[in-house]
């Protein structure tokens, strides 16, 4: 990865160049954004091979979709929006595959200490939420998914997403009061 990384060009410049068919710009964008995308997707899907395919899908979609990029919002947010939806697509096609398991992400004792410093009461309130409610919060609030998309990601009906989200809000409000 020691080729020209074009530091003078912003992400938006790169996407514009990609839209014009600049394959080298795609390479530079990949170097800047593939790593965090890979890690972030890995937090939502337990299958490493599937995550790698989704990263591929995402940058292929960036290559094809770059001409339509209108410069709204940050490029990383745009890439994430593509990536999480590609993941949902893939998961729908691999229905039998292991879906993201919220129970597998229980914080360790060390995390509790770090979180206490960093997030104070909010972290405590979040932590007291059940893993199911937290997964719904993550998918909708943080990943920016609609309740239907969140339902597909988590393998639950969209109505369940809505009720869990309501419960999560109520519990958080009570926990912070």
């Amino acid at each position, binding site marked *: 990865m020691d080729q020209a990384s074009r530091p003078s060009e912003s992400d938006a410049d790169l996407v514009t160049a990609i839209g014009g068919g600049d394959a080298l710009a795609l390479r530079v964008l990949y170097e800047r954004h593939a790593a965090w995308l890979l890690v972030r997707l890995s937090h939502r899907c337990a299958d490493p091979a599937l995550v790698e395919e989704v990263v591929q899908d995402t940058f292929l979609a960036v290559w094809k979709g770059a001409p339509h990029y209108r410069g709204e919002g940050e490029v990383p947010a745009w890439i994430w929006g593509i990536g999480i939806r590609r993941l949902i697509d893939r998961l729908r096609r691999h229905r039998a595959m292991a879906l993201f398991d919220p129970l597998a*992400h229980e914080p360790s004792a060390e*995390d509790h200490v770090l979180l206490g410093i960093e997030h104070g009461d909010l972290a405590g309130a979040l932590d007291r939420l059940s893993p199911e409610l937290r997964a719904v919060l993550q998918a909708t609030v943080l990943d920016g998914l609609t309740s239907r998309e969140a339902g597909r990601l988590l393998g639950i009906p969209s109505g369940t997403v809505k009720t869990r989200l309501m419960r999560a809000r109520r519990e958080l409000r009570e926990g912070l009061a």
Partner: protein
Amino acid sequence: MSWHVDEPILDLYASGTLGDPAVYSVEAHLVTCTRCRGELSTRVDESRLDRIWVGVRDRVDAPRAGIVERLLVQAGIPSHVVRLLMTTPSLRPSWVVSVAVSLAFAVLADRLVGAGALPFLVLAPLVPVVGIAAAFARPIDPVWEIGAATPLGGFRLTMIRAAAVLVLSVALAGVAALGLPEPGWTLVAWLLPSLGLTGLTLALSTTSAGMPNVAGAVAATWSVGVVLAEWLADQRLAAFDARGQVLLALIAVASIVVVVARRDAFERRVGA
């Protein structure tokens, strides 16, 4: 932005062991922070990223498959066979259109000029013959060099393409035949001749004569033969009566035997 994710937190996040609320915080920050994204990159296996990139690059470079190609692949035909068929000159849309137009004119001649079914019955069996010749004509076959240089080329390549050309030709002629003025046995009278002439062309192409020469000779012999039979027997469509059909069926069977027996000949000179 002056706030950045602490190194130990990034370590935990990269390894997937960070707890949920902290993950929210890290991810919300990563979207906006170039520096922390860079820090995170150093914690991801570079060879893994390189491997994924190779996949991206290959898919970006790959030529886009046409709609027919995608349909055939969806229908379960192996993609390398589909690609082979797509590069066959006599399976391209331009060829199909010209064959369809020729057959349509033959049917039209039969109807308007009242020439009986003769023009159509002479032409229909020649469609696969010319198609196969074109499938291997060196100047217009885009993969000729590949075929010639591929150890597997020869026999398999010839048979796959010949079969595809034959199926397509028969389908086109079958549709065209429905337009004939006096349907009946003429509806299928061209079928055995098609097989016979196609087989004969393939069998003769195992000799040192080139495919186009063989096809030309077969086409000329056929045309003259039909007219001659009609003139000698003093009977309309004499070449297509029972004796003619049996003769062409025998030629078809004999040709298959010759082609299989001399299959090595295809390995030596694909598309010469």
